[in-house]
């Protein structure tokens, strides 16, 4: 712990601490929990959850590219199949003021340029209304669209996991990886805050980030998870892919965050039936999630429609999406009429 952080932790209230953007030590094994403060509400807009449009093409790219442990920067990805994952997070503080954050920046720059223009993200970035990018992890479909963000504000603050590889930072500084089709011509000039897995990083009162250093395929590891504490309602997890697993995240909150006993919900990819595969053990995950009694679950992306449909049938409070996604120029080949995904253009309020 840095001396400054150490001193800030002394006798400061959670609100003051979060306002200062300090870190709380993870209280695992200790007696106290971290107080991340509270907010009044969180609104999430799904800018794009279609990282790729055809599962078979994506799987083939991985297999033909050398397998799932291959460095993602060396795989010749099918560009036509790439989209991206990104969401707008609006935090309403207890005093009614609002802050906007961009979570992830997608993959294909053409796709992300369209998405950002459609939702006015380009203008919010340029004006500084959005001044922070919360990067969940360094996977191509969450990060390689970085130019689409930086072209509007190269000085944007970025909060990311500290589990990066050299290529990740090269891309951030401006680089091209021709084989993989990753390119950024706008060097990042702002603050890059790398979060380790030992602390809980407070962003604003009621919103904090915890990094979980878990193994991920395509030579990526570690994911930053957003924990939100909605006053009077409970904890919400906001994830890019939820590589650590939803039950692990809820358990962590229970043990380490003040108010973590009360689970309110989740938003994001939950990393279950990613390729619409089904394993009977997924039923246990549904039961596990039920035991936390969530009230609102907004899921998409790597959750898999198969799991989301089964979860909804089993009584989990899956928030239904709309048909807005059909007005986007491309549609996922696995989208179904059940609308169990919050998909492109949908919103959810916690």
């Amino acid at each position: 712990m840095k001396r400054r952080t150490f001193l800030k932790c002394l006798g400061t209230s959670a609100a003051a601490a979060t306002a200062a953007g300090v870190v709380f030590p993870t209280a695992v094994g200790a007696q106290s929990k971290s107080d991340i403060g509270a907010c009044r509400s969180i609104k999430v807009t799904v800018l794009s959850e279609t990282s790729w449009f055809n599962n078979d093409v994506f799987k083939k790219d991985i297999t033909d590219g050398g397998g799932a442990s291959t460095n993602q920067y060396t795989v010749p990805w099918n560009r036509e199949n790439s989209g991206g994952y990104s969401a707008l997070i609006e935090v309403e503080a207890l005093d009614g003021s609002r802050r906007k954050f961009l979570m992830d920046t997608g993959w294909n720059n053409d796709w992300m340029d369209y998405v950002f223009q459609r939702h006015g993200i380009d203008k919010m970035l340029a004006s500084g209304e959005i001044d922070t990018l919360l990067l969940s992890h360094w996977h191509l479909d969450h990060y390689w669209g970085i130019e689409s963000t930086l072209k509007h504000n190269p000085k944007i603050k970025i909060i990311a996991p500290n589990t990066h590889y050299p290529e990740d930072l090269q891309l951030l500084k401006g680089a091209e990886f021709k084989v993989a089709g990753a390119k950024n011509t706008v060097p990042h000039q702002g603050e890059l805050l790398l979060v380790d897995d030992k602390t809980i990083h407070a962003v604003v009162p009621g919103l904090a980030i915890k990094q979980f250093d878990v193994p991920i395929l395509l030579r990526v590891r570690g994911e930053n998870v957003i924990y939100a504490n909605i006053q009077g309602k409970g904890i919400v997890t906001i994830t890019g892919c939820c590589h650590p697993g939803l039950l692990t995240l809820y358990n962590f909150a229970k043990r380490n965050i003040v108010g973590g006993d009360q689970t309110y919900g989740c938003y994001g990819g939950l990393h279950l039936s990613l390729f619409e595969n089904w394993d009977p053990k997924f039923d246990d995950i549904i039961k596990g999630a039920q035991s936390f009694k969530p009230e609102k679950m907004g899921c998409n992306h790597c959750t898999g429609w198969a799991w989301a449909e089964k979860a909804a049938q089993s009584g989990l409070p899956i928030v239904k999406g709309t048909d807005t996604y059909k007005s986007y120029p491309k549609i996922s080949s696995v989208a179904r009429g059940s609308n169990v995904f919050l998909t492109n253009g949908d919103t959810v309020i916690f």
Partner: protein
Amino acid sequence: MNRRTFFQAGERQAIDAVAACVEEVAQLRKGLTAVAQEVLAVGDSVMDSFFDSYEESYSLTLAYPREFFEQMARAAGIHCDERETLDIVRDLYRAGKLG
């Protein structure tokens, strides 16, 4: 200032100084507790129990097709036949083939 006032003022200063000292010690103690918590947290990791079960590791072991792991295992010389995916992935992790 007469002699009595002089001593009263000095006493107050002394008391204030002692109070400040006590407060400083209390804060230092709190700080040490925070540091101790962090030290304790260093040993804790999701990975300590990640491969104990599918419930812990499903986001990795069940989310991808088994053939992904078999391809990786073959390349790493890890045996796959009649083995649980969980065991194969654990071996891949231990062999440094994940992340």
